[in-house]
């Protein structure tokens, strides 16, 4: 099963918490905004990053489009 990662670029403030939490999945772009693949099979890594984000800028959706928490 794959999960969709959505990063709200207007909300991300470059704290880097997602990278610390899930470095294999997330990175900081040259503009200081987090980047990630649009889809992943690693549910836990994506959710851990979303939970760690202090700005709540990361959403993880399942295949039905339902946001996971």
């Amino acid at each position, binding site marked *: 099963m794959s999960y969709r990662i959505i990063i709200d670029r207007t909300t991300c*403030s*470059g*704290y*880097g*918490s997602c990278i610390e939490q899930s470095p294999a999945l997330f*990175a*900081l*772009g*040259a503009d*200081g905004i987090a980047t990630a693949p649009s889809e992943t099979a690693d549910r836990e890594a994506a959710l851990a990053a979303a939970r*760690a984000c*202090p*700005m*709540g800028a990361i959403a993880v959706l399942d295949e039905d489009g339902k946001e996971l928490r």
Partner: protein
Amino acid sequence: MTLTAALPVAWLVARAAGLVAFGILTLSTWLGLGMSTRLLGPRYQARLLGWHRTLAWTGLGMIGLHVAAVMADPVLGFGLPAVLVPFAAPWRPAAIAAGVVAGWLTLMLAVSFRMRSRIGQRGWRRLHYASFGAFLLSLLHALSAGTDLAGLGGPVVAVVAGGPVLWLTLVRILTPRVRRAAAAGAR
């Protein structure tokens, strides 16, 4: 960590002030080394010293703003010990310690301008060797603690800031003092 809906003003100020402080203190280091090598000639030494001192204090002010903003940020949750005592920070303690020690060294160097007559020229110059440590530690802090210099930006800033420091240091070491003075006198 807490969910912050509003714009993280303290975090943004902390990052901006930290980068500005690094930029100003890099300029101050360049200027200090430029004076030390006497490559710019004796005519401007007094004026350059004034600029060097002003930059050091301005950089220190920016460090103060950086530290205050870091403490005000609710996400980082840094208390007074974390910003004053090396390795007391709960997050990336080594990276933060580099910044803490660099801050203390910068404070000592800035205060030393006012203590110059008391500690003497030789003592003051010896004390100024700490500026190499302050520069190196602040560069390490910027590269390892901040998120702004992640990726390619870090090495680029390190080369742009550190290149002139390295070059001027080599000039300082390799050029005999007599020849430097002669070159300056010829201007």
